[in-house]
């Protein structure tokens, strides 16, 4: 598994990039003890124009480098937590639907479809606007719009695993259904869930930045989307204010996508190999 993953160059690039972002996020308070909001110099200083401000200053003379570092914290936090919350909603729902079938499945899937019918970015906007922008409301709104695909994926996986013979064996062993679901079925759906989760973190980061861009960010937390939103009015005079956070988002999202793809390839070694084996089994 790890061998296949580590031999995937894209995935390793992703890991390195993501680690870099994580390190920056973790060390932000050490690197910039005064926080991202302090007005340190004249506004609109270009990158490298003044020592100690490698990325320049923003509209209020705040250190862009510090903002980027603190922004990484928010992006990663919102991305991770909202994905976790989405998993907490989607995995049980999908697992129950897929495992128990019949009316449980029917009900859960109607519920899921219902959420998929509402345009999800619009729903996120309404949710954040209504609960007022804060990290908590943004995280929850993102989770609420992103769980349906999780539920569908888990349901499909559970339905396929549930048909495998070892599940029958576990039933014959006298294990209770919940225990079979937890110990036999769910562990076998972990790989696709992990792959999906890594991609969801990426999507959540994009969503958070889009909300912040529209002015629906947490005003007390410096985030990349906020930086772009704040800087877009000065994009022509001070390109770096929207350029750097944009690049930061691209790098982070790209890294997560690369990792997700790498995991996917590692979990599902090349189809031809799998097919060859399947062929052999039948022969």
């Amino acid at each position, binding site marked *: 598994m790890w061998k296949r993953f580590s031999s995937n160059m894209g995935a390793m690039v992703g890991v390195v990039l993501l680690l870099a972002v994580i390190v920056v996020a973790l060390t932000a308070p050490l690197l910039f003890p005064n926080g991202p909001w302090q007005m340190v110099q004249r506004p609109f200083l270009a990158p490298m124009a003044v020592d100690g401000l490698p990325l320049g200053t923003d509209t209020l003379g705040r250190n862009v480098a510090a903002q980027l570092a603190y922004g990484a914290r928010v992006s990663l936090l919102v991305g991770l937590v909202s994905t976790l919350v989405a998993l907490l909603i989607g995995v049980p729902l999908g697992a129950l639907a897929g495992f128990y079938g019949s009316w449980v499945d029917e009900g859960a899937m109607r519920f899921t479809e219902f959420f998929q019918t509402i345009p999800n970015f619009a729903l996120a906007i309404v949710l954040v606007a209504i609960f*007022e922008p804060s990290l908590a409301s943004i995280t929850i709104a993102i989770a609420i719009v992103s769980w349906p695909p999780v539920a569908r994926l888990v349901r499909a996986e559970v339905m396929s695993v549930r048909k495998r013979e070892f599940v029958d064996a576990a039933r014959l062993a006298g294990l209770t259904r919940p225990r079979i679901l937890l110990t036999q079925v769910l562990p076998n759906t972990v790989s696709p869930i992990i792959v999906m989760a890594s991609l969801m973190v990426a999507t959540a980061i994009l969503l958070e930045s889009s909300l912040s861009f529209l*002015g629906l960010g947490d005003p007390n937390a410096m985030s990349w989307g906020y930086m772009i939103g704040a800087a877009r*009015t*000065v994009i022509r005079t001070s390109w770096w204010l929207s350029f750097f956070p944009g690049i930061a988002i691209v790098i982070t999202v790209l890294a997560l996508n690369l990792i997700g793809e790498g995991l996917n390839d590692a979990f599902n070694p090349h189809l031809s190999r799998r097919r060859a084996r399947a062929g052999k089994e039948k022969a």
Partner: protein
Amino acid sequence: MTYLKATTFLIAAALAAPVAAQQAGGRLDIVVQPEPPGLMLGLVQNGPTQLVAGDIYESLLRYDTDLVPQPSLAESWTISDDGLVYTFTLREGVTWHDGTPFTAADVVFSADVFLRETHARLRSSLAYVDSITAPDDLTVVFTLKEPFGPFINAFETGTMPIVPKHIYDGTDYANNPANATPIGTGPFKFEAWEKGSYIHLVKNEDYYIDGLPYLDEVFYRVIPDAAARAVAFETGEVDVLPGGSVENWDVPRLTQMDNVCSTGNGWEFFAPHAWMWLNNREGPTADAKFRQAVMYAMDREFVKDVVWNGYGKVATGPISSKTNFYSDDVTIYDHNPDKAKELLAEMGYDGTPVRLLPLPYGETWQRWAEAVRQNLSEVGINVEIESTDVAGWNEKTSQWDYDMAFTYLYQYGDPALGVSRNYTADRIQKGSPWNNVEGYDNPALDAKWAAAATMVTPEERAAAYLDIQKEIIDDVPVAWLLELEFPTIYRCDIKDLVTTGIGVNDGPRNAWIEK
């Protein structure tokens, strides 16, 4: 400062033939932001509606940039010496856009019937009015119950738009189908409204002043994104950016372009005054020392220079320097963090966090709130910014659910119209974000405000307002910030665009394009 003179104006000469250089023809594209909810000025008086409908509707008077009244639908007027009787002589030969003649009956209907029902701000002035009569088709008489100095300022288009009686009399005003195609007496006629895109006005060929307007048509362009509005101006797609339609950061860049002029004029009548409501009822902000500390902690010059690009003026107190009866002979709060810390120590501030509600009107206000939070945190005040949209802001301020909240309000030329409403105890009423939202209760001052409003001579009133300003500024009921100045940006070949105290709102009437 200019004081009002209650005298008779004869204006025939004032409207002498246009200067030879003025050229007719052409089209003006003006940004309007946000899209107005409606154009029937009698029903809706928000900013965008005033901007567009100011060309369609008119009132009896106009006001120049020194707030001196000028004739409009009224040719001349007199005010009795006791300040109680205002007599207006209307212009002859004025017709509505649908061809119906305009008469004094329209004025009486508008002021006494229509606007009494629909226009909250005018209603408070009309409270002083005893009767409105039309002795003949060209004369209207307003009789007051008691003298009310600022009454002469009530005849501005947005304050008292004259609406057509023949269309609205006896109808359900709000649901009258004619609201979609407004009929006024103004220099431009409503032509089309492509929702989400533009409003198209065309020249009123039958306008009662020969030669006016010069322009053939005016497009009000709806462009929801501030950056896109700036681009639109750069690429020449729009010609005029009324105050506030681009972010302040773009102003210097745009004004440095070739053939681009800007002016801070045209806001004198409104004199937008920005401050933070400080909740006087509870929390740290209930303590005057805390409020004074806030004043000292803020670097308002920095905000003016950085956030507002140098436009505007640091406010000294409740009355704008553009409004009548302003005085700077008061305590001045400079940026003095040490003094602020001292005051906080004296008061015994324990670090209780205070919530700060920015005004949800775009990046400028957001940055301003961030700068204030940083200033306050530097003197040891814990600030949390609460984010909300326009609806949430209105709800929170009018329900007093805030600690500190940004706002700005218009002053309409006179403290009795636009200032006292925010400080007197009788205006402490939940449900409105324009009254005494901070909950400042000072009975002694209440009496002084009331007296100053009904004094007859300007001199008396000036003295009374000086007294009020000195006292209230020491109390800091709210944290005054800036006298805002919203520069109007336009192509230099557009002439005479801003000639009155309400700026572009009625600018196209006289504007012309140099070819």
